[in-house]
């Protein structure tokens, strides 16, 4: 395959390479507190005509603060300039390629922004009586229907605010189901390649997390799994494709093994982008599925959130779902009401979940539909497979099965010869105009670079990324890592002393 020439069509200028980004200047941006000037203000309030009682005429004096909190005092103009400059010191999907493995940083369609801004959605109070919010209930009910169809499940809760909260929800459902069967198993099995949230969620649900080793293929070691399964096991949490980007081809045997012990199979939806519309978790035997709408369904990640982590389940688990859930009013076509599932575990969110994120995902799904959703998976896998093959020979692939939407490359050979680490290559890649891949994850691969190009990057962008990854490795081999270890030099700040920051904590501005 290496002998294949790169098609010329793919070597044109790329839309996703962002080395043209003009981040001006090398000065730091002052904090708001340094920009503050006593007595300056940005605020204004209208006259309401309500009597202007003094503070101590409103609440007893013992409750009153001596002074208002020491917030910064800035003009609106300075405020706008400050946050605009801060935004210029931040890379984003809207700038270019963001091949962060396991994060599915695809293009976030602008039409979904317009949906989230609709006053008929954005201005509803979450405690309004059902009859005043029929549009919202219909939207959430339809989203639930579609997510169940996409995952091959029977019912879902839309409350969890993020993937990790979805995991905890799913594990609590697992617990409730076992209790309903008169069982109290104490362990949850989790592959050694799993996201850290899996074992952390298991602990929060009161389970002991037990690690399942991967085999030489990078897949669940089915023999080892067989030895670990017992009546004390509540379930297995599995990401499929897994975090090395490989499809767990033994999934039918795994499901049979787990179910034979009356344990449940939990699907971590972090990597659903690889199979959406092509393979359904329910058809693979999964009983509980969490989705990351901010990954597969392109709701913007907001610099770290908000996300949304709905949990969909098979028929036998539906009675335990958190509530309330929107359900049709019997005998009244098209009308919905909030209903608490009969054996509900309770609530996960203070209201109904990240509703506007759910509305964005709904719009995204309507746009794609039955024909567009599988195209996402097919193209995401095509991009990843192409990129992986372009890197062959320069990077190692410790688990070299056919990759899905992402793959994990290792730069161990380069480290052995030059001492250059995956971290150095990642930082050097920034200077070439790309956000780096995920580094040092999963933990079972040394010097890991986990690359997920996503389906919205053009073939030219994927090829440009391949060339950049090849060039930084070749350069490091030649200069012994001189350039890579000094990178990045084009960004507002250079490499940061993270260990120093953790040792000498400065978590607030103190002047």
């Amino acid at each position, binding site marked *: 395959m290496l002998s294949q020439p790169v098609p010329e069509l793919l070597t044109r200028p790329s839309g996703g390479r962002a080395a043209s980004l003009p981040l001006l200047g090398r000065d730091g941006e002052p904090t708001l*507190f340094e920009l503050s000037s006593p007595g300056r203000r*940005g*605020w204004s309030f209208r006259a*309401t005509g309500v009597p*202007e*009682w003094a*503070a101590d005429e409103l609440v007893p004096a013992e409750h009153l*603060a001596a002074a208002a909190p*020491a*917030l*910064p005092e800035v003009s*609106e103009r300075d405020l706008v300039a400050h*946050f605009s400059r801060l935004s210029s*010191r931040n890379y*984003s999907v809207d700038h270019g390629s963001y091949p962060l493995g396991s994060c599915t940083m695809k293009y976030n369609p602008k039409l979904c922004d317009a*949906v989230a801004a609709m*006053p*008929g*959605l954005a201005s*509803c109070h979450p405690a309004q009586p059902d009859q005043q919010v*029929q*549009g919202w209930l219909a939207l959430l009910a339809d989203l639930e229907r579609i997510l169940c*169809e996409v995952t091959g499940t029977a019912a879902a809760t839309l409350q969890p*605010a*993020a993937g990790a909260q979805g995991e905890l929800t799913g594990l609590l459902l697992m617990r409730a189901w076992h209790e309903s069967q008169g069982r109290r198993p104490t362990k949850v099995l989790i592959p050694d390649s799993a*996201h*850290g*949230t899996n*074992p*952390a969620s298991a602990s929060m649900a009161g389970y002991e997390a037990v690690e399942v080793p991967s085999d030489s293929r990078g897949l669940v070691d089915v023999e080892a799994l067989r030895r670990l399964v017992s009546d004390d096991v509540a379930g297995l949490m599995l990401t499929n494709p897994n975090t090395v980007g490989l499809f767990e081809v033994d999934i039918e045997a795994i499901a049979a093994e787990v179910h034979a012990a009356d344990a449940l199979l939990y699907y971590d939806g972090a990597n659903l982008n690889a199979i959406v519309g092509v*393979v359904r978790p329910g058809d693979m035997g999964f009983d509980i599925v969490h989705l990351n709408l901010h990954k597969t369904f392109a709701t913007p*990640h907001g*610099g*770290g*959130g908000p996300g949304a982590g709905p949990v969909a389940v098979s028929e036998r688990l539906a009675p335990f779902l958190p509530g309330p859930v929107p359900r049709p009013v019997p005998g009244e076509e098209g009308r919905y009401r909030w209903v608490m599932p009969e054996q509900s575990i*309770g609530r*996960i*969110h*203070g*209201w109904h979940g990240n*509703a*506007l994120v759910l509305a964005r995902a709904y719009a995204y799904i309507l746009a*794609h*539909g*039955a024909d*567009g959703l*599988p195209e996402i998976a*097919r193209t995401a*896998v*095509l991009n990843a497979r192409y990129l992986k*093959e372009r890197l062959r020979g320069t990077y190692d692939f410790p688990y070299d099965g056919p990759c899905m939407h992402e793959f994990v490359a290792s730069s161990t050979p380069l480290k052995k010869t030059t001492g250059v680490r995956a971290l150095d290559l990642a930082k050097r890649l920034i200077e070439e105009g790309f*956000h780096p891949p995920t580094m040092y994850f999963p933990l079972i691969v040394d010097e890991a670079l986990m690359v997920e190009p996503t389906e919205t990057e*053009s073939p030219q962008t994927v090829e440009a990324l391949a060339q950049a990854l090849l060039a930084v490795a070749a350069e490091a081999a030649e200069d012994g890592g001189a350039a890579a270890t000094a990178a*990045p030099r084009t960004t507002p*700040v250079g490499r*940061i002393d993270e260990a*120093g920051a953790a040792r000498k904590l400065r*978590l*607030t*501005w103190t002047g």
Partner: protein
Amino acid sequence: MAAGVIVRGMGSFVPHTQAEIEAMLGFLGLDSLDDLFAHIPDAVRLAGGLAIEPGRAETDVLGRLGELAGRNRPAGAASSAGHLVCFAGGGAYEHDIPTAVRALAGRSEFVTSYTPYQPELAQGVLQALFEYQTMLCRITGMDVANASLYDAASSAVEGLNLAAAATGRKLVWVSAGVRPAIRTVIGTLCGPRLEIREAPLRDGVTVWPDDLGEPAALLLAHPNHLGVLEDVAGAAGKAHGAGALRVAGADPVAAGLLRPVGELGADVAVGEGQPLGTPLAFGGPYVGLFAVKQAPYVRRWLPGRLVGEAEDSEGRKAYVLTLSTREQHIRRAGASSNVCTNQTLIAVMTAIHMAWLGPAGLRELALRCGRGARYTREALFRIPGVEPAVGAPSLYEFAVRTPRPAGEVLEKLAEEGFLAGLDLTADYPELGEALLVTVTESRTRADIDAYVTAFEKAVA
């Protein structure tokens, strides 16, 4: 589908042309896109496609969502057709959102970036979060704030988890003045590991039992769900005496007037950031506020992301995620929490709104809410049969006993164009038929006068 022919959904954002796909497949030595999935067992592959509608163009999607939005009666100004003038709060509030806040928080560099794992590319979000942490500490009177949790409920849960980890105890006391849905979330999420007991209200104020046992934490809200100002210092004293952590629900709007909970002895401040910068949004996305006093357990047990000041290789000031050894991606099953993605964008919105207000603006905001509430309260209590459901002082929301069923009052006032409040009857049966009425700076005297007139008619 015919081999090799690309099916393109109407609302697709995939850029690949037919020729490009063929070139890539050719490079890979494959004949069709289906070959990419050839190693997946046939039995688990979806035959026949998804049973949902085909994709549609942007205009049709917006049309469908617009139609759904049109079936809601959102809270808003009286002048907007179909809107309800909002006197409901209870954990979700209509406030005026400055245009500048909306504009800045809508910048795509903030909206479409990931968690700042590569700090050199994310100084903007990191600095904004550092400023958020600082401002949150200043309004709560605490020392260390994290970079946000999901909502008030998740903050309360994490506050109790932190207390349990720090004290090595399992018993937690939760005031009945904490919003009922949050108490349910605590039961759901902490129930498997902690023993949760409830402290009742007397005339709206929490009564802590004399014998607290050996608790990890006491949790109360200030103001509480009935709008009542609690005795935070008294609760803190009791908690301290019992060796527990004091977890207090703090309100960022009331912070303009009230003594900060940190000053009143709280060890952990939790709360909802929605009132500053975020629309009602049918309940989310909001932002969980979380701040603590400096203590030895912070380094090990603080939940969530934390931004710290750092230096780069040339000694320049920089910002970075720090103390990650507490977190799930490092410590896995032993992590302080499972939280990963939080509500960063909403935290940034809250920060921008706090800075737009400044100290004088935040005080003015709290004053205006309090004045509107007093004006409304006095007018409502002149209506025969309408009376205070509790006697304790409140700031900008208060419980009203109604002479007719509260649900019926809500319904009648909706016909007149008002969202009259929240029905408290089911959650607090000891109050009788009661509504929680909330007044913010968004309500004018004219709004309030019209509301009171409609209220009088509804209960007549």
